């Protein structure tokens, strides 16, 4: 019988540099009240100009491995990104493999997904490891949108922050990964698009409509598939697209303060936003977590995490 693979630990790297949205309200014609109650982001994290995607990824991995995980024990490295190093070839996972001095038989590849990517990645890596008898692997998210955001574009410049996370998956998990629910509406794929100018454009209305109508139903299906009612969920870890979208989805789920917004000081970090919540915003008494990521595609993926043992430690590096 193959061992069941789950989440053992999460670590992250948030660049220290921030862009201050409060200082840009006049430039973008918005009020501080709107910033606080609707957008939600006072600051967005920015990587250094010398840092590339694999550097962010490697720094998140270093924090994870510093807590006692030898890189020689890694059997797979999967990186969720749509903004790889340089011109996109080779894959970021190969650069991380080199930075970590991982084994040559370590499975390495990138997964091209946006804000829904973490849940997709959990499902892919869990399946890959279980079907191949792998015992220890890394799921990395590193998608610095500062590479593609036009700093003068009001629709996107105040939203996206840079970050990376590293999740250790293995056979001695803190969190068991449940069945997942996946949604794609490719007819709306242009709602988040990088065009010929290599810059991101966003149809906020289309994105909002997809998220508000699709995500709550996806979360409900994921809970149902795992035999859990919404009332039993301790925390809803919702992709931090903006305060408004998190509040809207939480309201439609009846989540109350179980579905919070926590990204005010670093921004929408794309596929890193859900693992950042898992690392920093889950308490020792939280036992059932509903995760949902949503965005580029337009796509959505939801799942349930169940704490494996009652005594279980916290899911981050100490």
């Amino acid at each position: 019988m193959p061992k069941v693979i789950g989440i053992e630990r999460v670590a992250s790297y948030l660049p220290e540099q921030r862009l201050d949205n409060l200082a840009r309200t006049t430039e973008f014609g918005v009020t501080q009240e709107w910033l606080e109650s609707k957008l939600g982001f006072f600051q967005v994290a920015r990587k250094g100009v010398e840092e590339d995607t694999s550097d962010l990824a490697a720094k998140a991995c270093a924090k994870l491995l510093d807590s006692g995980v030898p890189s020689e024990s890694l059997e797979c490295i999967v990186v969720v990104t749509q903004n790889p190093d340089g011109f996109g070839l080779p894959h970021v996972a190969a650069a991380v493999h080199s930075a970590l001095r991982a084994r040559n038989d370590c499975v390495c590849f990138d997964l091209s997904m946006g804000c829904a990517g973490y849940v997709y990645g959990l499902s892919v890596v869990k399946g890959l490891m279980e079907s191949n008898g792998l015992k220890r692997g890394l799921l990395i998210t590193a998608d610095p949108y500062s590479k593609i955001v036009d700093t003068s574009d009001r629709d996107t410049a105040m939203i996206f922050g840079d970050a990376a996370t590293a999740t250790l998956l293995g056979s001695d998990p803190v969190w068991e990964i449940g069945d997942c629910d996946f949604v794609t509406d490719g007819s709306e794929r242009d709602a988040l698009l990088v065009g010929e100018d290599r810059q991101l454009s966003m149809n906020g209305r289309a994105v909002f409509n997809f998220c508000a109508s699709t995500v709550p139903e996806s979360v409900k299906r994921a809970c149902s598939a795992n035999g859990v009612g919404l009332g039993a969920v301790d925390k809803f870890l919702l992709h931090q697209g903006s305060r408004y979208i998190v509040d809207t989805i939480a309201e439609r789920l009846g989540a109350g303060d179980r579905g919070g917004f926590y990204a005010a000081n670093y921004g929408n970090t794309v596929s890193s936003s859900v693992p950042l919540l898992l690392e920093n915003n889950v308490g020792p008494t939280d036992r059932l977590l509903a995760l949902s990521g949503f965005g580029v595609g337009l796509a959505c993926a939801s799942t349930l995490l169940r704490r494996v043992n009652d005594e279980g430690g916290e899911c981050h590096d100490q």
Partner: protein
Amino acid sequence: MINEADVRDAIKGVAGSDTAMQIPVEETFADAGIDSLDHTNILLRLQERHNLVVPDEALDECSSINGILAFAQRQEDATGGG
């Protein structure tokens, strides 16, 4: 066919009871303090509850209660509904 009460109900769910009751039918949402996010949310509620699909090109027209009702009437007329 949606009516004024339906639109006010959608406004209530997004912007609260006071705004929903007090906004004049001809006043634009922006003038009533309803921003573009709330405007989008109001139209989504009308779409989900009453199948009123407002394309992006008609957003400006549908920026007041009267505007929405006029748009809905035209849609009704165009599809031969009664």
